[in-house]
Structures are given as C-alpha cells and as structure tokens.
C-alpha cells in the first residue's frame, strides 16, 4: 500500500480525536458565550483558524521524526517516503482551511437563526467563501512546510545545528502568516497585493521543500526519532 495511504491510516485516529475535541470545545464555548448575549466575534475563526496554523506545524514535525525511520525500516526508500509525505501533507493543507471556512459558515448561519450575532460578528458571506479559503491556505501550507523542514534539520544534524536551522526553517510559515491572513475579527488581510504575497509564500514553500529533499534524500537512518 502506498506511503500516503499508510500515513492516513496511522493518523486517522489522532485526526478524529482532534476534530472531536475541537467540535466539543466549539459547541460548549459558543453556547456559554451566547448565554451572555449576542456573540461579538467568531469563536470558530479564532480557535480553528489558529489550529489551522499550529496543528500543521506540529504535524509536520511529527511526520518526519516519527515516520521516516519506521518507513525506511519497512523497505520504503527515502524518496518514496518524501513523495508520500508531500501527498499526505498536501491533503492536510488543502482540507484544513476548507474545514475552517465550512465551520465559519455553520457558526454564522446557526447564530443567525437564533438571531444571536452582534454587530461586530464577522458574518459569513457565501460569495466570500473562496476568498476566505485562499486567505487561510498560505499560512497552513507555510506552517506545515516549516514543521517538516525544521524536523528534517534536526534529523540530519546534531541538535545545536538543528536549533540554528530553526530560523531559516521558520520562513515558509512566517511568510504564509505574515503576508496573508484572516484576522481574529474575520478580516481578510494581504499585506502586499495578494498575487505578490501569494507568490512570495509559494517561493518560500518551494524552497523549503527543496531544502527538505536535500536534507533527507540520503540521510542516515538514526536509531532514535530525532
């Protein structure tokens, strides 16, 4: 079976738990906030929006440190692993922002039904769904790339070199979040013209991917995770 499918199988349980916890927190918190009156902000955009950055960062780190060794030990080449990793990571990166958008839509509609949206609540507009998605995507892709790149640095080199490499490794994530984001108040922000910001993020992500390939294509398989 392919590397990506095996990764999905291994992560299935963790992803389901994560989704369940996020959902329970969301429902509980919004219900509690609603008791105090109309809701002034999108709890989902704050919590799931942040999760769409930091969870991919952690996932990226875990993917290399947990699985490179175990997959090679099961007869998978480094290149096959990297290809499967890209496929699996692309899946996370494409789906997670979409989940954020859908969640925002549900939250907005449900609160609207109960007429519980305050004036400052970022009402979801179906016409803006694509734009919202495209403003979430770069940060998710960037942080995922950063997570993978940083753990590749630690895998390849001694810890202190790994620490030094955190700074350049953080670039894709920082570019993605710094240039394009959806603010906590639901505002779509591009600090440069969107096309240029997106291109810069894409360049950082591609450079990160190339660096990861360089670091891992012939790396010695260590006895421990890092």
């Amino acid at each position: 079976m392919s590397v990506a499918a095996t990764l999905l199988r291994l992560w299935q349980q963790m992803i389901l738990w994560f989704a369940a916890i996020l959902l329970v927190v969301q429902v509980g918190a919004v219900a509690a906030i609603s008791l105090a009156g109309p809701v002034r902000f999108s709890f989902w955009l704050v919590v799931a929006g942040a999760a769409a950055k930091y969870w991919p960062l952690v996932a990226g780190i875990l993917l290399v440190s947990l699985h490179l060794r175990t997959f090679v030990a099961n007869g998978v080449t480094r290149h096959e692993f990297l290809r499967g990793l890209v496929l699996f990571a692309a899946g996370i990166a494409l789906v997670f922002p979409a989940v954020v958008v859908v969640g925002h839509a549900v939250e907005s509609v449900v609160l609207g039904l109960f007429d519980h949206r305050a004036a400052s609540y970022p009402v979801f507009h179906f016409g803006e769904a694509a734009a919202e998605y495209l403003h979430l995507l770069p940060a998710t892709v960037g942080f995922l790339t950063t997570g993978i790149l940083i753990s590749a640095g630690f895998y390849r080199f001694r810890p202190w070199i790994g620490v030094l490499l955190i700074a350049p490794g953080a670039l894709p994530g920082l570019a993605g979040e710094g240039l394009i984001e959806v603010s906590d108040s639901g505002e779509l922000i591009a600090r440069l013209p969107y096309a240029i910001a997106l291109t810069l993020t894409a360049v950082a992500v591609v450079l990160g991917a190339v660096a990861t390939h360089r670091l891992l294509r012939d790396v010695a398989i260590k006895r421990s995770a890092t």
Partner: protein
Amino acid sequence: MIEMRGVTIRYGDTVAVDDVSLTLPTDKIYGLLGRNGSGKTSLLSALASYRRPSRGTVLVDGVEAFENPAIMRGTAFIRDTLDLNDSDRVRAALDVAGRLRPTWDAEYAHKLLDIFELDPRKRISALSRGQRSIVGVVLGLAARTPLTILDESYLGMDAVARTLFYRELLADYLAHPRTIIISTHLIEEVAELFERVVIMDRGRVLLHDETDALRGRGVTVTGPAEQVSAFATGHTVLGEQTLVGVRALTLDGRLDPDEIARGERAGLTFGPLGLQDLFVHLTSQRLEVSR
C-alpha cells in the same frame, strides 16, 4: 549476489568500516562475527541502505542498492534498538509492516507471536528487553525478504526464547530459502546454522569462509618448550602460553596427520580448536605475534 565494493564508513575522524570489499552469494545463512566496535553494525547499515557509505558501493545483482525501491523493499534490517515508536502497540507495528511490505506473511507473524507467547496488544514501551528482541525477530522473519539482516537480535532473550528463535529461523529458511545475515556474539550457540562466516576486526573483513572449514582449523600444541617451538616453525602462531618449561602454542591451519604423528612421537600433545576459540585468537590483540 550481494557485493560490497570498497565500502568505507566514516564518522568524523573515526573510520568504522575501512575499504571493505565482500561478495556474498545469495540464499545462504551468514554469521557476522566481530568484537564490539569492529564495525559490524556500520557494515550492515550500508548493506541495508540505512546509511550511504562515505566511499564505495553496495550492489545487489549488479545494481546499486542505495535508494533502489525494489532492492530496499526486499531488504529487512532489524537493529537491536528496533526502529519502532515506543508508544506503538506490537499489533500496529506488524500492521504497518503488512501494509508496506509486499512479501509480508501476516499469518506467520501471528504464529511466531504465539510461539514466543507475546501479546500483540502490548505497547513497545511496556516490553522487556527480551520481548523487544522477539518483536524484532518476528518483523525480520515474517517480512520474508530476499535479504534479511538480524543485528544481535537475541539481546535479552532467555535460553528458551533463543532456542525457539534458532529453530524458527532454520525452519523458515528451509521452507523459504533466502539470504539471512546474523550478527552475534554467541558463536557457539548458533554457529551450526551458518553456512558461511564473516569475521570483522577493526573495520576490516578478517576472514570470510565456509563455517565448516573453520572447525578444527586451528590446533593447540602442548609440550616441552623447546620441542613445541621447533615444531611450530613454519606455522602461523595465533597464541602462546608458557609455564615452567611447558609451552602451549595455538597454530593456524590444519596439520596433516603425518605431522601430528611425528609430533606425538616427540612427546607433544595436540588438540583441535573450536570455532569460538579460533575467533578469540584471531581477533584478540595480538600481543605476541611470534613466528
């Protein structure tokens, strides 16, 4: 055919494997012997493409092995530390092997767990040293790969588990012949399973021969110091002991019966050398290489 050509592995200034060239015909059981730090694990890491050699190449049937999908798929390298995550359950580790290895035999894996009485629901972190070794053996044997490498896979196993391990290894090899390389320090226990033996010493291959050719290859000669020394001229001396006029020399090579008969008439006694003693003599610091 598995070939190593001029393989050198360096860690900084340390040379772990020093220009090793080795040809291993396939479908045999090999024993890899050597003292601690002699470079066994580094050599095996290169064989299994876990590490790219600093210099030299590993070829399988004439094709470079490193990062070759077909060859790596057909290679299982079980290290004593196990390449699993501690939080995984045994069952999950076997499941991943089944997904990634086309040659995996799940039924056989479970049969082995039964034989070794290991509960697949246990987490790796909850296993004793011997049980971890058992998981390694199961992963190695049930993978049924054309090249299976077991690096000190007996660590922590009790005598019963080791006996089961050797029995299962041989039975499965008879049913599914393949190349199996076993590194070990317990020479006397497993030597009968080895068709060939490779002995490493300080990063180099000291010897590669049929195991049977090494049994009785060395001989000890004991007797009056002068006669023993006279007899030994022309032979390679591996070891020497002298005590009040009596000398015992360990000689390399098989003596012909006439020579032994002549020695016995001169009052010398001869004793053949076992495999383990031969290994110890060949790899111990030769303080007194006398001729």
